């Protein structure tokens, strides 16, 4: 092991101080479920590492119409959030029990695809990311957080400290398609939040994970669905646009061709679920 220093700050100011002192050379980890396998295997050879498990960022609390999730809250803590079923389900469908006891919500934002199921659910819920840096805190929408494959809007001296989830009224749905039921990486993950008036869609957010360089909103599909009554022709068009907008990679889980095709299938299914209709097969 090449690691010469491992820091375990006990507060955010201490963590920011270490980041300022050591700069981008300092690898920040939390649950360790993504970084530690790479370090154990010698693929990642960091000299200095900072762990956030003791930085006091693991609280999940309700504040008015929002849920404030500490960056190092575990996925197991989210599974217990029964009043936000979309988050609880996304967390419960991620990895295995032991991993969920370690992996963090903040860390899920940095997990390369096909990881990021919880991040995909957070995107559908219009979550915001609270970031701390030397100049204080700033908040940015999750839609502005990712800038590319494994790149974010975070400056090298900043840390994600919490994620704010608005608890809007509406229907939600989450579909993860993997090669088996439990502990499986996604072929595609789709999450949705919609408000309906009678049968008409007033607003909709559709998020896609595992089939793009980072979780993305399917804005063209959303535009077709908004204002509609989720008629079959609308769903067909939205599914086709979603498949077009997917930008998947090929890996051991699935080919890019298959992920694109499944994006269409699962966007169709999630819209049918929101409409309260039994799914048709593609």
């Amino acid at each position, binding site marked *: *092991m090449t*690691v*010469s*220093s*491992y820091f*375990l700050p006990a507060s955010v100011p201490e963590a920011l101080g270490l980041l300022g002192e050591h700069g981008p050379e300092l690898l920040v980890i939390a*649950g*360790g*479920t993504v970084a*530690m*396998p790479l*370090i*154990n*295997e010698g693929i990642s050879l960091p000299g200095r*590492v900072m*762990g956030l*498990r*003791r930085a006091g960022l693991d609280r999940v609390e309700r504040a008015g119409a929002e849920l404030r999730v500490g960056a190092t809250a575990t996925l*197991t803590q989210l599974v217990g959030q029964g009043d936000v079923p979309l988050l609880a389900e996304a967390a419960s469908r991620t*990895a*295995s*029990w*032991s*991993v969920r*006891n*370690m992996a963090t919500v903040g860390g899920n934002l940095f997990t390369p695809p096909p990881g990021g199921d919880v991040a995909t659910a957070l995107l559908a819920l219009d979550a915001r990311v609270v970031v701390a840096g030397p100049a204080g805190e700033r908040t940015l929408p999750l839609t502005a957080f990712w800038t590319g494959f494994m790149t974010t809007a975070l400056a090298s001296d900043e840390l994600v400290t919490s994620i704010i989830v608005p608890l809007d009224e509406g229907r939600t749905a989450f579909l993860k398609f993997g090669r088996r*039921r*439990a*502990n499986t990486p996604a072929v595609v993950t789709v999450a949705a939040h919609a408000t309906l008036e009678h049968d008409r869609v007033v607003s909709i957010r559709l998020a896609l994970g595992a089939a793009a360089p980072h979780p993305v909103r399917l804005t063209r599909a959303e535009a077709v669905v908004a204002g509609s009554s989720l008629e079959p022709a609308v769903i067909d068009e939205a599914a086709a646009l979603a498949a077009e907008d997917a930008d998947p990679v090929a890996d051991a889980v699935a080919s890019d061709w298959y992920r694109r095709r499944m994006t269409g299938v699962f966007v169709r299914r999630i819209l049918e679920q929101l409409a309260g209709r039994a799914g048709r097969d593609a």
Partner: protein
Amino acid sequence: MASVIVGFKLAGREVEVMASPLATLQQVLRTQLGHTSVKDGCRQGGCGSCTVLVDGEPMLSCLLPVQDIAGRSVTTLEALTPAEGLHPVQRAFLDANGFQCGYCTPGMEMLAVALLEHNPQPTREEIEDALGGNVCRCTGYEPIIEAITAATGSREAGR
């Protein structure tokens, strides 16, 4: 940075180890404390053979820097095994032939113990979900599920 002294509870006793930066709980348990039931399987968090309980919750010791769990309580299969005889979960695995080569067994049993602590009467589906991160290449899982189901019964009978 030099090694640091890390103290935690193991099997109810305070232990202190010298740990190099980012040393994992798995390395410390195996090489310094002799708890070799904690297997060194994939070191990727992918096989579950290094599962231990930290404050009663299953975690993968290969991914856990030992400094992170300073002051917390760690349980391994060595800690659960009585001086004489077997823990009811071990007995159930033996009776149901819940292992062949035995490599996955400590991780499976730690997970089973944690599951029964959280949920004394798990359904078959709940057992399957709980075992989702623990790989067995010999048994095909059926005898393991049988063993855990039987351990449920023995716990009830033992009350």
